[in-house]
Protein backbone atom coordinates (compact mmCIF):
# COMPACT_ATOMS: atom_id res chain seq x y z
CA UNK A 1 0.00 0.00 0.00
CA UNK A 2 1.01 3.59 -0.48
CA UNK A 3 0.32 6.71 1.55
CA UNK A 4 -0.02 10.00 -0.30
CA UNK A 5 -0.18 12.59 2.42
CA UNK A 6 1.16 13.55 5.79
CA UNK A 7 -0.91 12.74 8.86
CA UNK A 8 -0.41 12.57 12.57
CA UNK A 9 -1.92 11.06 15.66
CA UNK A 10 -1.38 11.28 19.39
CA UNK A 11 0.16 14.02 21.47
CA UNK A 12 3.28 14.87 23.41
CA UNK A 13 1.55 14.74 26.75
CA UNK A 14 2.97 12.47 29.42
CA UNK A 15 2.61 8.72 28.65
CA UNK A 16 1.59 9.43 25.07
CA UNK A 17 3.43 9.49 21.76
CA UNK A 18 2.92 11.74 18.74
CA UNK A 19 3.35 9.91 15.45
CA UNK A 20 3.63 11.77 12.15
CA UNK A 21 3.79 9.75 8.95
CA UNK A 22 4.55 11.03 5.48
CA UNK A 23 5.35 9.53 2.08
CA UNK A 24 9.08 8.97 1.49
CA UNK A 25 10.91 9.14 -1.83
CA UNK A 26 13.26 6.29 -1.03
CA UNK A 27 12.12 2.77 -0.45
CA UNK A 28 11.95 1.64 3.14
CA UNK A 29 10.68 2.58 6.55
CA UNK A 30 12.54 5.55 8.00
CA UNK A 31 11.89 6.24 11.69
CA UNK A 32 13.11 9.36 13.47
CA UNK A 33 12.54 8.88 17.17
CA UNK A 34 12.82 11.39 19.98
CA UNK A 35 12.09 9.84 23.35
CA UNK A 36 12.66 10.55 27.01
CA UNK A 37 13.44 6.87 27.45
CA UNK A 38 15.39 6.39 24.25
CA UNK A 39 18.41 4.77 25.84
CA UNK A 40 16.36 2.08 27.53
CA UNK A 41 13.52 1.51 25.09
CA UNK A 42 14.48 3.24 21.83
CA UNK A 43 14.94 0.07 19.79
CA UNK A 44 11.82 -1.51 21.29
CA UNK A 45 9.68 1.52 20.39
CA UNK A 46 11.02 1.50 16.84
CA UNK A 47 10.28 -2.20 16.54
CA UNK A 48 6.66 -1.70 17.60
CA UNK A 49 6.25 1.12 15.05
CA UNK A 50 7.96 -0.91 12.32
CA UNK A 51 5.86 -4.03 12.98
CA UNK A 52 2.64 -1.99 12.90
CA UNK A 53 3.62 -0.43 9.55
CA UNK A 54 4.47 -3.86 8.11
CA UNK A 55 0.92 -5.03 8.82
CA UNK A 56 -0.23 -2.40 6.32
CA UNK A 57 2.43 -3.47 3.78
CA UNK A 58 3.52 0.12 3.25
CA UNK A 59 6.95 0.37 1.66
CA UNK A 60 7.88 4.06 1.40
CA UNK A 61 7.21 5.87 4.61
CA UNK A 62 8.88 8.38 6.87
CA UNK A 63 7.86 8.40 10.51
CA UNK A 64 8.56 11.09 13.05
CA UNK A 65 7.87 9.86 16.56
CA UNK A 66 7.99 12.06 19.64
CA UNK A 67 7.59 9.80 22.62
CA UNK A 68 6.80 10.76 26.18
CA UNK A 69 6.89 7.30 27.70
CA UNK A 70 4.00 5.60 25.89
CA UNK A 71 3.35 1.89 26.41
CA UNK A 72 3.35 -0.61 23.54
CA UNK A 73 -0.39 -0.63 22.95
CA UNK A 74 -0.48 3.17 22.87
CA UNK A 75 2.38 3.23 20.35
CA UNK A 76 0.56 0.66 18.18
CA UNK A 77 -2.72 2.54 18.33
CA UNK A 78 -1.15 5.92 17.52
CA UNK A 79 0.83 4.44 14.59
CA UNK A 80 -2.24 2.70 13.18
CA UNK A 81 -4.38 5.82 13.43
CA UNK A 82 -1.75 8.01 11.77
CA UNK A 83 -1.47 5.55 8.87
CA UNK A 84 -5.25 5.26 8.46
CA UNK A 85 -5.50 9.06 8.36
CA UNK A 86 -2.74 9.19 5.77
CA UNK A 87 -4.47 6.56 3.64
CA UNK A 88 -7.96 8.01 3.62
CA UNK A 89 -9.13 11.42 2.58
CA UNK A 90 -11.29 11.84 5.61
CA UNK A 91 -11.65 9.36 8.42
CA UNK A 92 -11.45 8.80 12.14
CA UNK A 93 -12.42 11.87 14.10
CA UNK A 94 -9.37 13.99 14.53
Amino acid at each position, binding site marked *: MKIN*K*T*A*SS*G*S*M*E*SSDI*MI*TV*SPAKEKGIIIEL*VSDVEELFGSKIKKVIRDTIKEFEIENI*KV*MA*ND*KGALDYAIRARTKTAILRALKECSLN*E
Partner: protein
Amino acid sequence: MLWNIKINFIKPNYNDYSWKALLRKVGLKPEKNLDITLLVKEQNKLVATGSLDGNIIKCLAVDPNYQKQGLMSIVISRLKAFLIRRERKNYFVYAHRNQVPLLENLGFNELVGVGKYPVLLEDGISKIEDYINIINSKITSFNAKKKYEQGKIASLVMNCNPVTKGHSYLIEKASRNNQLVIIFILSEDKSLFSAKERRNLLQKVVAGKDNVIVVPSGNYILSYSTFPKYFLSEDQEKESIRLYAQLDAHLFGKYFARSLGIKRRYVGTEPNSVVTAIYNQQLKNILPQYGVDLIEIQRIEMKGIPISASRVRKLLKEDKLDQIKSLVSRTTWDYLKFWSDQNEDK
Protein backbone atom coordinates in the same frame (compact mmCIF):
# COMPACT_ATOMS: atom_id res chain seq x y z
CA MET B 1 -2.25 18.03 38.70
CA LEU B 2 -4.90 19.76 36.67
CA TRP B 3 -8.13 17.82 36.39
CA ASN B 4 -10.56 20.19 34.92
CA ILE B 5 -9.03 21.77 31.83
CA LYS B 6 -10.94 22.85 28.75
CA ILE B 7 -9.13 23.28 25.45
CA ASN B 8 -10.61 25.41 22.68
CA PHE B 9 -9.60 26.84 19.35
CA ILE B 10 -11.07 30.31 18.88
CA LYS B 11 -10.91 33.17 16.42
CA PRO B 12 -8.28 35.55 17.82
CA ASN B 13 -9.72 38.23 20.06
CA TYR B 14 -7.09 40.94 20.36
CA ASN B 15 -9.05 42.74 23.06
CA ASP B 16 -9.23 39.75 25.39
CA TYR B 17 -7.79 41.14 28.60
CA SER B 18 -6.83 37.80 30.20
CA TRP B 19 -5.06 36.69 27.03
CA LYS B 20 -3.01 39.87 26.84
CA ALA B 21 -2.22 39.68 30.56
CA LEU B 22 -0.98 36.09 30.27
CA LEU B 23 1.34 36.99 27.39
CA ARG B 24 2.79 39.93 29.32
CA LYS B 25 3.39 37.67 32.33
CA VAL B 26 5.89 35.61 30.31
CA GLY B 27 7.48 38.63 28.66
CA LEU B 28 5.71 38.54 25.28
CA LYS B 29 3.75 41.17 23.43
CA PRO B 30 0.35 40.39 21.93
CA GLU B 31 0.67 40.13 18.14
CA LYS B 32 -1.79 40.87 15.40
CA ASN B 33 -2.44 38.98 12.15
CA LEU B 34 -3.16 35.69 13.89
CA ASP B 35 -5.34 33.07 12.21
CA ILE B 36 -6.38 31.05 15.21
CA THR B 37 -5.80 30.97 18.95
CA LEU B 38 -5.77 28.00 21.30
CA LEU B 39 -6.95 28.64 24.86
CA VAL B 40 -6.42 26.23 27.74
CA LYS B 41 -8.60 27.01 30.74
CA GLU B 42 -8.63 25.53 34.21
CA GLN B 43 -11.98 26.24 35.89
CA ASN B 44 -12.54 29.22 33.62
CA LYS B 45 -9.12 30.70 34.29
CA LEU B 46 -6.84 31.03 31.26
CA VAL B 47 -3.65 29.09 32.05
CA ALA B 48 -2.01 28.50 28.66
CA THR B 49 -2.27 29.74 25.08
CA GLY B 50 -0.69 29.55 21.66
CA SER B 51 -1.65 31.00 18.26
CA LEU B 52 -0.98 30.41 14.59
CA ASP B 53 -0.08 32.84 11.83
CA GLY B 54 0.18 30.63 8.75
CA ASN B 55 2.75 28.02 9.69
CA ILE B 56 4.20 30.06 12.56
CA ILE B 57 3.36 29.46 16.20
CA LYS B 58 3.30 32.77 18.06
CA CYS B 59 2.13 34.15 21.38
CA LEU B 60 2.97 30.97 23.21
CA ALA B 61 2.51 31.20 26.98
CA VAL B 62 1.92 29.10 30.06
CA ASP B 63 0.99 30.83 33.31
CA PRO B 64 4.09 30.69 35.59
CA ASN B 65 1.89 29.42 38.46
CA TYR B 66 0.81 26.45 36.36
CA GLN B 67 4.15 25.39 34.90
CA LYS B 68 5.64 21.88 34.99
CA GLN B 69 2.22 20.30 34.59
CA GLY B 70 2.42 19.48 30.91
CA LEU B 71 0.43 22.46 29.62
CA MET B 72 3.05 23.43 27.04
CA SER B 73 2.94 19.86 25.65
CA ILE B 74 -0.83 20.12 25.31
CA VAL B 75 -0.65 23.44 23.47
CA ILE B 76 2.15 22.36 21.12
CA SER B 77 0.55 18.95 20.43
CA ARG B 78 -2.75 20.53 19.45
CA LEU B 79 -1.14 23.22 17.28
CA LYS B 80 1.12 20.66 15.58
CA ALA B 81 -1.81 18.36 14.83
CA PHE B 82 -3.70 21.37 13.41
CA LEU B 83 -0.75 22.27 11.15
CA ILE B 84 -0.21 18.72 9.93
CA ARG B 85 -3.90 18.41 9.09
CA ARG B 86 -3.40 21.43 6.87
CA GLU B 87 -0.54 19.65 5.11
CA ARG B 88 2.19 21.95 6.39
CA LYS B 89 5.56 20.37 5.65
CA ASN B 90 7.32 22.45 8.26
CA TYR B 91 6.37 24.94 10.91
CA PHE B 92 8.07 27.51 13.09
CA VAL B 93 7.74 28.93 16.52
CA TYR B 94 8.81 32.35 17.70
CA ALA B 95 9.68 31.85 21.32
CA HIS B 96 11.22 33.52 24.33
CA ARG B 97 14.72 32.25 25.22
CA ASN B 98 13.29 30.73 28.45
CA GLN B 99 10.92 28.52 26.45
CA VAL B 100 13.62 27.03 24.21
CA PRO B 101 14.62 23.94 26.28
CA LEU B 102 10.99 22.92 26.66
CA LEU B 103 10.31 23.35 22.94
CA GLU B 104 13.42 21.39 22.00
CA ASN B 105 12.10 18.60 24.17
CA LEU B 106 8.90 18.72 22.13
CA GLY B 107 10.76 18.15 18.85
CA PHE B 108 11.71 21.67 17.75
CA ASN B 109 15.23 22.65 16.64
CA GLU B 110 16.59 26.12 17.22
CA LEU B 111 17.51 27.82 13.95
CA VAL B 112 18.63 31.19 15.22
CA GLY B 113 17.92 33.64 18.01
CA VAL B 114 18.41 37.31 18.77
CA GLY B 115 18.65 38.15 22.47
CA LYS B 116 15.79 36.96 24.68
CA TYR B 117 13.18 37.33 21.95
CA PRO B 118 12.70 36.26 19.21
CA VAL B 119 14.25 32.82 19.02
CA LEU B 120 13.17 30.97 15.88
CA LEU B 121 12.71 27.20 16.09
CA GLU B 122 11.60 24.75 13.44
CA ASP B 123 10.00 21.33 13.25
CA GLY B 124 8.35 19.29 10.53
CA ILE B 125 8.80 16.72 7.81
CA SER B 126 11.02 18.91 5.64
CA LYS B 127 13.57 21.08 7.45
CA ILE B 128 16.10 23.76 6.54
CA GLU B 129 18.82 21.20 5.70
CA ASP B 130 16.46 19.53 3.21
CA TYR B 131 15.76 22.88 1.55
CA ILE B 132 19.45 23.72 1.26
CA ASN B 133 20.10 20.27 -0.24
CA ILE B 134 17.50 20.99 -2.93
CA ILE B 135 19.11 24.36 -3.75
CA ASN B 136 22.55 22.77 -3.70
CA SER B 137 21.62 20.10 -6.22
CA LYS B 138 20.02 22.75 -8.47
CA ILE B 139 23.28 24.69 -8.43
CA THR B 140 25.35 21.55 -9.03
CA SER B 141 23.38 20.60 -12.13
CA PHE B 142 23.48 24.22 -13.35
CA ASN B 143 27.26 24.27 -12.96
CA ALA B 144 27.65 20.95 -14.74
CA LYS B 145 25.90 22.40 -17.79
CA LYS B 146 27.81 25.69 -17.79
CA LYS B 147 31.31 24.28 -17.17
CA TYR B 148 31.72 26.65 -14.27
CA GLU B 149 35.12 27.08 -12.66
CA GLN B 150 35.88 27.65 -9.01
CA GLY B 151 35.66 31.29 -8.00
CA LYS B 152 33.70 33.82 -6.03
CA ILE B 153 30.04 33.09 -5.52
CA ALA B 154 27.77 36.09 -5.11
CA SER B 155 24.10 36.26 -4.30
CA LEU B 156 21.14 38.57 -4.51
CA VAL B 157 17.80 38.33 -2.77
CA MET B 158 15.06 40.07 -4.71
CA ASN B 159 11.32 40.35 -4.86
CA CYS B 160 11.27 41.75 -8.44
CA ASN B 161 7.73 43.05 -8.11
CA PRO B 162 8.10 43.57 -11.09
CA VAL B 163 11.69 43.28 -12.37
CA THR B 164 13.07 46.67 -13.46
CA LYS B 165 16.21 48.06 -15.10
CA GLY B 166 17.40 48.66 -11.53
CA HIS B 167 17.41 44.91 -10.93
CA SER B 168 19.11 44.24 -14.27
CA TYR B 169 21.82 46.73 -13.38
CA LEU B 170 22.52 45.02 -10.03
CA ILE B 171 22.58 41.59 -11.68
CA GLU B 172 24.88 42.88 -14.42
CA LYS B 173 27.36 44.22 -11.83
CA ALA B 174 27.33 40.96 -9.86
CA SER B 175 27.56 38.82 -12.98
CA ARG B 176 30.58 40.68 -14.31
CA ASN B 177 32.60 40.49 -11.08
CA ASN B 178 31.86 36.95 -9.90
CA GLN B 179 32.11 33.39 -11.15
CA LEU B 180 28.58 32.52 -10.15
CA VAL B 181 25.57 34.58 -9.12
CA ILE B 182 22.72 32.98 -7.20
CA ILE B 183 19.52 34.99 -7.25
CA PHE B 184 17.02 34.07 -4.57
CA ILE B 185 13.65 35.30 -5.74
CA LEU B 186 11.07 35.67 -2.99
CA SER B 187 8.64 32.76 -2.91
CA GLU B 188 6.02 34.49 -0.82
CA ASP B 189 2.76 35.21 -2.66
CA LYS B 190 2.00 38.46 -0.90
CA SER B 191 2.96 40.93 -3.62
CA LEU B 192 1.09 42.64 -6.47
CA PHE B 193 2.60 40.18 -8.94
CA SER B 194 2.47 36.46 -8.16
CA ALA B 195 5.61 34.44 -7.44
CA LYS B 196 5.21 32.73 -10.81
CA GLU B 197 4.87 36.01 -12.74
CA ARG B 198 7.85 37.54 -10.97
CA ARG B 199 10.01 34.46 -11.59
CA ASN B 200 9.07 34.19 -15.27
CA LEU B 201 9.89 37.84 -15.94
CA LEU B 202 13.22 37.60 -14.10
CA GLN B 203 14.15 34.41 -15.98
CA LYS B 204 13.71 36.27 -19.25
CA VAL B 205 15.89 39.14 -18.05
CA VAL B 206 18.77 36.86 -17.01
CA ALA B 207 18.40 34.43 -19.92
CA GLY B 208 21.51 35.73 -21.70
CA LYS B 209 23.82 35.44 -18.70
CA ASP B 210 25.39 32.03 -18.31
CA ASN B 211 26.68 32.50 -14.76
CA VAL B 212 23.37 33.54 -13.18
CA ILE B 213 20.99 31.04 -11.64
CA VAL B 214 17.55 31.88 -10.23
CA VAL B 215 16.27 29.83 -7.29
CA PRO B 216 13.27 30.28 -4.99
CA SER B 217 14.00 31.85 -1.59
CA GLY B 218 11.64 29.39 0.09
CA ASN B 219 10.67 29.64 3.71
CA TYR B 220 13.95 30.90 5.06
CA ILE B 221 15.07 34.09 3.32
CA LEU B 222 12.91 37.20 3.59
CA SER B 223 9.85 35.04 3.91
CA TYR B 224 6.73 35.68 5.90
CA SER B 225 8.02 33.08 8.37
CA THR B 226 11.43 34.61 9.01
CA PHE B 227 10.64 38.28 8.48
CA PRO B 228 6.91 38.91 8.92
CA LYS B 229 7.44 42.66 9.30
CA TYR B 230 8.65 42.88 5.69
CA PHE B 231 5.15 42.04 4.53
CA LEU B 232 3.09 43.76 7.22
CA SER B 233 3.47 47.34 6.12
CA GLU B 234 1.17 48.81 8.75
CA ASP B 235 3.45 47.59 11.52
CA GLN B 236 6.38 49.96 11.34
CA GLU B 237 7.83 49.70 14.81
CA LYS B 238 11.54 50.17 14.11
CA GLU B 239 12.91 48.21 17.02
CA SER B 240 11.04 45.04 16.09
CA ILE B 241 11.91 45.44 12.39
CA ARG B 242 15.53 45.58 13.47
CA LEU B 243 15.23 42.33 15.47
CA TYR B 244 13.63 40.41 12.62
CA ALA B 245 16.15 41.81 10.14
CA GLN B 246 18.95 40.52 12.38
CA LEU B 247 17.27 37.13 12.56
CA ASP B 248 17.03 36.97 8.78
CA ALA B 249 20.66 38.03 8.31
CA HIS B 250 21.90 35.37 10.75
CA LEU B 251 19.81 32.70 9.03
CA PHE B 252 21.28 33.63 5.66
CA GLY B 253 24.84 33.65 6.95
CA LYS B 254 24.66 30.60 9.17
CA TYR B 255 22.85 28.27 6.77
CA PHE B 256 22.86 29.53 3.19
CA ALA B 257 26.21 31.31 2.90
CA ARG B 258 28.06 28.53 4.73
CA SER B 259 26.56 25.59 2.84
CA LEU B 260 26.56 27.19 -0.59
CA GLY B 261 29.91 28.97 -0.29
CA ILE B 262 28.46 32.45 -0.84
CA LYS B 263 31.04 35.20 -0.31
CA ARG B 264 29.19 38.31 -1.42
CA ARG B 265 25.72 39.68 -1.27
CA TYR B 266 24.61 42.58 -3.45
CA VAL B 267 21.93 45.09 -2.54
CA GLY B 268 20.79 48.35 -4.04
CA THR B 269 20.93 51.48 -1.89
CA GLU B 270 17.53 52.16 -0.40
CA PRO B 271 16.20 55.72 -0.57
CA ASN B 272 12.51 55.14 0.19
CA SER B 273 11.50 52.13 2.25
CA VAL B 274 12.25 52.30 5.98
CA VAL B 275 12.06 48.53 6.34
CA THR B 276 14.51 47.82 3.51
CA ALA B 277 16.93 50.48 4.75
CA ILE B 278 17.01 48.91 8.23
CA TYR B 279 17.34 45.46 6.64
CA ASN B 280 20.35 46.51 4.55
CA GLN B 281 22.01 48.04 7.60
CA GLN B 282 21.63 44.81 9.59
CA LEU B 283 22.97 42.73 6.68
CA LYS B 284 26.00 45.00 6.63
CA ASN B 285 26.56 44.48 10.37
CA ILE B 286 25.98 40.75 10.53
CA LEU B 287 26.99 39.07 7.26
CA PRO B 288 30.76 39.69 7.66
CA GLN B 289 30.62 37.39 10.74
CA TYR B 290 29.93 34.60 8.27
CA GLY B 291 32.58 35.64 5.77
CA VAL B 292 30.15 37.42 3.46
CA ASP B 293 30.77 40.95 2.18
CA LEU B 294 27.77 43.14 1.65
CA ILE B 295 28.15 45.19 -1.51
CA GLU B 296 25.85 48.17 -1.79
CA ILE B 297 25.37 49.46 -5.31
CA GLN B 298 24.10 52.98 -5.90
CA ARG B 299 20.71 52.76 -7.57
CA ILE B 300 20.52 53.96 -11.14
CA GLU B 301 18.23 56.89 -11.81
CA MET B 302 15.89 57.96 -14.53
CA LYS B 303 15.21 61.69 -14.76
CA GLY B 304 16.71 62.19 -11.30
CA ILE B 305 14.53 59.64 -9.53
CA PRO B 306 15.93 56.23 -8.54
CA ILE B 307 14.42 53.33 -10.47
CA SER B 308 12.52 51.04 -8.16
CA ALA B 309 9.76 48.47 -8.45
CA SER B 310 7.63 50.54 -6.08
CA ARG B 311 7.86 53.45 -8.55
CA VAL B 312 6.70 51.15 -11.34
CA ARG B 313 3.78 49.92 -9.24
CA LYS B 314 2.80 53.48 -8.40
CA LEU B 315 2.78 54.44 -12.08
CA LEU B 316 0.75 51.33 -12.91
CA LYS B 317 -1.79 52.33 -10.31
CA GLU B 318 -1.99 55.83 -11.76
CA ASP B 319 -2.37 54.31 -15.21
CA LYS B 320 0.73 56.11 -16.52
CA LEU B 321 1.94 53.17 -18.56
CA ASP B 322 3.96 55.28 -21.01
CA GLN B 323 6.20 56.52 -18.19
CA ILE B 324 7.10 52.95 -17.21
CA LYS B 325 8.62 52.11 -20.58
CA SER B 326 12.02 53.64 -19.77
CA LEU B 327 12.20 51.90 -16.36
CA VAL B 328 11.85 48.29 -17.42
CA SER B 329 13.16 45.86 -20.04
CA ARG B 330 11.28 45.18 -23.28
CA THR B 331 9.89 41.82 -22.13
CA THR B 332 8.69 43.26 -18.82
CA TRP B 333 7.11 46.21 -20.61
CA ASP B 334 5.21 43.89 -22.96
CA TYR B 335 4.00 41.89 -20.01
CA LEU B 336 2.92 44.97 -18.04
CA LYS B 337 0.86 46.19 -21.01
CA PHE B 338 -0.84 42.80 -21.23
CA TRP B 339 -1.30 42.75 -17.44
CA SER B 340 -2.84 46.20 -17.23
CA ASP B 341 -5.27 45.44 -20.09
CA GLN B 342 -6.37 42.33 -18.25
CA ASN B 343 -6.83 44.13 -14.97
CA GLU B 344 -8.81 46.90 -16.59
CA ASP B 345 -11.46 44.39 -17.61
CA LYS B 346 -11.97 43.28 -14.03
